[in-house]
């Protein structure tokens, strides 16, 4: 077999189902208390510090990390359940999501001990927000074209240049960024970039919000002017950031957030159609549910492989590729079906509002976190084509 793709039928163990009920009960209480409205993905203010703390109190942040850093030493499958229930409920996870998924694990692997002891427990308590500083005005898919510079100075580095499209930078406490510490070499154009931990509350950083086509402000331009980063904030190998990037990707690429971002329109369509759909609506819903179920089974399967200590890079890229395309198409398919819904359906206005938002959201889904084209390049490499 040229391409040994594996998607074992992993089932979530019983402790996950107990946890799922706890998460659902918690979210129901939060909804009842008015923290958020599950029917409104287009919330204006998506930063919810108090909610974030309460999630931390429940022990649902840093779930898989060692206890000495405030973690809970639970499984990836348990974390999976918490993530998907939050996503389906449209809970306001912005403050902690990136830190919990991505930044924490990077720090665990590459940060010095005293920094881990300082920051990781605060992530677990839901107190700190992280952003990711990779893209620049002239460096997107081609990450290794990054130019923002870190220049050696006494006791640390001076940063000059700018990052762009930085999600949550306007509320973030920290950023994990890559900066140029040396020029690339002839032999290796990926050489010369180093990963750093940036304290966003220190001087020399200006954050300029950028409006998105949805009307929201999620991402930003971040300008660095002689911003000082101490030596111990360098993460991993000098000039070797490229070596650190790939193994993180399986975690980033296959989670439930990669196919559930527009899920809410499907629930609302089912509600609008009612218990006795006509053939056209029934077929449309059936096809969408079959896709949803399949995507989820694939994603759980990758989570199970991660739990087993494997690095399913190709499978994870496949899940993100077809998952993001599905969540991008979903609002359009729902729109087609909604055209035949009874105008008197009690949730018609909600559905219309959600569709308008989801259709505007859709284009970003195949761009953020690596475009479809980039993912297919990775899959092609996994197939041995490059």
């Amino acid at each position: 077999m040229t391409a040994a793709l594996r998607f074992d039928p992993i089932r979530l163990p019983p402790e996950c189902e107990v946890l799922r009920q706890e998460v659902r009960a918690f979210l129901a209480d939060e909804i009842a208390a008015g923290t958020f409205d599950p029917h409104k993905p287009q919330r204006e203010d998506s930063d919810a510090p108090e909610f974030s703390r309460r999630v931390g109190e429940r022990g649902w942040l840093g779930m898989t990390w060692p206890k000495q850093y405030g973690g809970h030493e639970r499984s990836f499958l348990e974390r999976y359940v918490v993530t998907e229930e939050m996503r389906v409920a449209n809970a306001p996870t912005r403050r902690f999501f990136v830190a919990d998924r991505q930044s924490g694990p990077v720090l665990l692997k590459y940060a010095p001990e005293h920094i881990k002891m300082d920051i990781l427990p605060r992530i677990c308590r839901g107190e700190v927000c992280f952003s990711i500083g990779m893209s620049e005005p002239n460096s997107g898919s081609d990450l290794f074209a990054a130019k923002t510079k870190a220049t050696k100075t006494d006791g640390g580095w001076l940063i000059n240049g700018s990052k762009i499209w930085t999600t949550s930078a306007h509320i973030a406490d920290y950023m994990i960024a890559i900066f140029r510490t040396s020029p690339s070499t002839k032999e290796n154009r990926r050489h010369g970039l180093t990963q750093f931990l940036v304290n966003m509350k220190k001087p020399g950083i200006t954050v300029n919000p950028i409006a998105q086509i949805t009307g929201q402000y999620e991402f930003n331009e971040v300008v660095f002017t002689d911003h000082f980063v101490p030596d111990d904030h360098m993460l991993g190998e000098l000039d070797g950031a490229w070596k650190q990037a790939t193994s993180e990707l399986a975690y980033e690429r296959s989670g439930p957030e990669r196919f559930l971002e527009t899920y809410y329109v499907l629930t609302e369509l089912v509600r609008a159609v009612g218990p006795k759909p006509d053939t056209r609506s029934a077929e449309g819903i059936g096809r969408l549910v079959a896709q949803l179920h399949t995507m989820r089974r694939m994603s759980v399967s990758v989570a199970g492989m991660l739990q087993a200590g494997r690095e399913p890079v190709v499978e994870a890229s496949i899940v993100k590729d077809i998952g993001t395309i599905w969540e991008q198409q979903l609002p359009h398919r729902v729109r087609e079906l909604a055209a035949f819904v009874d105008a008197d359906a009690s949730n018609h206005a909600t559905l219309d509002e959600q569709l308008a938002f989801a259709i505007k959201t859709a284009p970003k889904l195949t761009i953020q976190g690596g475009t479809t084209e980039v993912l297919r390049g990775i899959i092609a490499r996994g197939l041995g084509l490059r």
Partner: protein
Amino acid sequence: MLAGWLLAQAHLASPEGMMTVAPASPKDRITLNADGTLTGRARGVPFAIDAKHIAVVATGIGGVSIALVDAGACRIEAGLNLANDPSNTVTFDKVQPIAIKSAPSGFGQNSLMLMGALARSLQIAGAMETMLDLSVRYSGERVAFEKKISKFQAVQHNLAKLAGETSAALAAASSAADALSNSTSFDDAIFLEAASAKIRCSEAAEKGAAIAHQVFGAIGFTQEHILHRYTLRALAWRDDFGSESYWAVELGKLVASRGADELWPLVASR
């Protein structure tokens, strides 16, 4: 295999020689008459013309029964599916079964359709693994414009898409197989698994077969080349035991009747 499974549900022994099952389409019904004979018509029965026996699900006043029938006692019309495999209309005209027993409780006509749909889903997933394997290998051999075609990004991306569809088919089919083999009843969750597998694998077959043929160019369009043995079969199997549009309607009805707020709990229960 499916016939053996079906007979085993009613503790009937499987005879020697080739068997098939009827009905093979959700709209067809075989009736068990008061005198113990069977009447009805089943279309699209795979390999009926070559089979010695047929395992049959029949419905009578007493409920659902499973019967073993001598294929020679039925009228079997010649017919071929897309891949030129026999696919026959079988007419039962007061046929006396060799053996017949009541189906176990919870087993209905739909149970055979779900199991048949699952079997076809697994076959489609397997065919797609081979399509992917053949296509990847060929793209590394065929040269055009002085390059292996695997070096063209458009070809790479097509193959990545084929890998995605193959993965979806594999995941859906193996999940449903795992679910059915660990379950004794045919509840909503099993229905979700089996129906989704048939829908998703059929959709994958359409997209995947098109890509595989595209990668092979003209050579893959020839009778002599092996590719069509996989592509045409995968496409043909979409029609057996309920097509993807049939199952999508049924699954959509199930989801709608359970209500919007029960959709996620159903999906998350798997």
